[in-house]
């Protein structure tokens, strides 16, 4: 027994000598070209962490205290001002990775770690490591999926991953509604309406049609489905035009020519498709009403800002848009980010009914208002709940 113990101790001492700093990546002892010396680091921070894989393994009998030590050390790092900010960037992620290595079930700390790393440093790959390890240990914790989603959300070029994590996290028990809502927003912002439709259906299945959240999801489903179909059919028309150098006479010709397979899907709002054979454009009437109502709200707001600035209403809408400038202060109204809005015709009725002497100055017919189109959507939902219409189908079915 003594001989065996002696061999074991010698072997492990050999590990320390051989692996030493190359063991667990202890940030205090990592070597690099601009690394501060070991003595200086211990003096500066006064908290000594054991070195090497052997020492860390020897402390396994302490249980989660190793992870606690890393957690406390990381808290010191965050709060401490570094002479060289690059040191903070380099070590914070390593500390959190070591923490999650020693206690992968500590998901609340992992969530904080991800926020800290992405907030303090630009080392998103380290934050990904932390959340990845935590997810392997506790895939049922929706907060980890949410953290990963948030991380990818603000990481340029990683929107698809953000959507993926949001959808997977939404399936976990107790998941926040914010996950699917975020996925829905991301998909629609990206113009990926097929994905947005799938997400809307997930939300409907999760919340149920007969609930407040389900009502919101149903509204989004109608809108995204309409946009998706509209986009698909417009693409088919464009292809027809490219092949035959003319626009189809009507939508039936598009179907019979094989440019739309599986038949023409009914317009989701039940109001029909509006096809202009001269221009080769197709719009969903319901979507046109919805977009028109939204534009009307924007124009009303711009008119309010204009009249507040100049003391009178513009003679025409063209004057309004030509003279529109970003508000000088936030009190003036809605701020528009990006390019100033452009004057476009109403998607369904074409010309705007503008009368500067009336209030509201922009008038919409009763069947073109937001209230009307919301009512249409709610009516379909009620019919679905009562079972008087078939359940919604996949786009294109």
């Amino acid at each position, binding site marked *: *027994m003594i001989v*065996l*113990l002696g*061999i*074991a101790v010698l*072997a*492990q001492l050999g*590990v320390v000598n051989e692996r030493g700093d190359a063991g667990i990546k202890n940030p205090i002892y990592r070597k690099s070209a601009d690394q501060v010396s070991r003595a200086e680091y211990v003096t500066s921070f006064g908290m000594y962490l054991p070195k090497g*894989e052997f020492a860390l*393994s*020897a402390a*396994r*009998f*302490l*249980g*989660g*205290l190793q*992870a*606690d030590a890393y*957690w*406390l050390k990381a*808290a010191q790092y965050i709060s401490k001002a570094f002479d060289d900010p690059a040191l903070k960037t380099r070590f914070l992620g390593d500390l959190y990775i070591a923490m999650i290595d020693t*206690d*992968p*079930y*500590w*998901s*609340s*700390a992992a969530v*904080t770690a991800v926020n800290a790393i992405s907030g303090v440093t630009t080392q998103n790959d380290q934050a990904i490591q932390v959340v990845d390890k935590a997810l392997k240990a*506790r895939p049922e914790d929706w907060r980890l999926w949410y953290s990963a989603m948030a991380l990818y959300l603000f990481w340029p070029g990683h929107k698809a991953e953000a959507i993926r994590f949001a959808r997977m996290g939404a399936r976990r028990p107790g998941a926040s509604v914010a996950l699917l809502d975020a996925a829905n927003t991301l998909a629609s912002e990206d113009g990926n309406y097929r994905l947005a439709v799938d997400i809307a259906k997930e939300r409907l299945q999760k919340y149920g049609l007969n609930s407040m959240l389900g009502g919101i999801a149903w509204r989004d489903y109608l809108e995204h489905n309409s946009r998706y179909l509209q986009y698909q059919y417009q693409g088919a028309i464009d292809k027809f035009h490219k092949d035959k150098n003319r626009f189809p006479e009507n939508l039936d010709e598009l179907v019979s020519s094989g440019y739309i397979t599986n038949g023409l899907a009914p317009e989701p709002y039940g109001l029909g498709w509006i096809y202009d054979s001269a221009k080769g454009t197709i719009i969903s009437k319901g979507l046109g009403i919805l977009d028109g109502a939204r534009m009307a709200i924007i124009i009303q707001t711009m008119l309010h800002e204009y009249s507040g600035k100049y003391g009178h209403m513009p003679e025409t809408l063209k004057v309004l848009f030509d003279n529109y400038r970003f508000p000088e202060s936030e009190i003036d109204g809605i701020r528009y980010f990006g390019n100033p809005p452009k004057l476009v015709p109403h998607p369904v009725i074409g010309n705007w009914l503008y009368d500067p002497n009336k209030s509201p100055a922009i008038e919409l017919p009763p069947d073109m208002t937001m209230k009307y189109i919301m009512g249409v959507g709610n009516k379909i939902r009620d019919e679905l709940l009562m079972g008087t219409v078939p359940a919604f189908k996949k786009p294109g079915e």
Partner: protein
Amino acid sequence: MNTIRRFFDNVSAIAVNSFREGVRDRILYVFIVFAVAVIALGKVIGWVSVGEDIKVVRDIGLAAMGLFGVMIAVFVGSNLIHKEIEQRTIYTVLARPVGRGEFVLGRYFGLLGLVCTLTAAMAVFFTIYQAILVWAGASGLNEAEGGAISLPLIRVQFLIVYQFVMIVALAVFFSTATTPVLSAVFTFVAYVLGHMVNWIYSFSDMMLEKRTPTFFDHFMSWVLKVFYYLVPNLETFDMRLRAVHGLDISNTEFLLALLYGASYSAMVLLGAYLVMNRRRL
């Protein structure tokens, strides 16, 4: 039937006597006081833990239970049999119709009862203390996972107490074979190595991962593998990481741990009996 009855009578008599003898040792109360202080002062560390108070308190409490429990086992167990031999008091016991195996078993159960009782007392204090902290809203930013008193936490405390079935068996074994100092060192080293077993196993594989492993590498790998199986695998009982977060331990894992502890201890006690049997007294 009479033999079996006499066996149990002898073992229980020695066990009770060992327990009473151990309880009189004042050093144990110092350990208990220190353990309680460490558990209670865990909250101080919790104050600087940025919203993870309860997790830190639980980690410190469970670590203290394990550490002080093994220290009690080491300090009392290391001198258990050797002292009797040195002071010749063992002769008065063995002069009666008491076998050496019964003596060893009796001493074992006595010490085990002592260690388990004291560790269980620590466990009760820890459970009540952290439950009070949770109820008093000491969790800071994050809720105490699993609630104030959860089944995983109770199970893991039971396993911490149960692991001493193996530790005390080793202490008794070393006590029969060596001097008290070496016995204490070996028992403590076995405890530490018991928590490093997974690393020992992976290191034995790493020895062979070189491009051209030498004969020495193969030999060391084999030695470490044997060592892995000899050393008590205390990681089997270590489910603290999960229990602290309120994550449940499966019944299968729990029962297998109990079975492993009992069978390993039986082997070690058999070894102690063989050593004791061969000793010239």
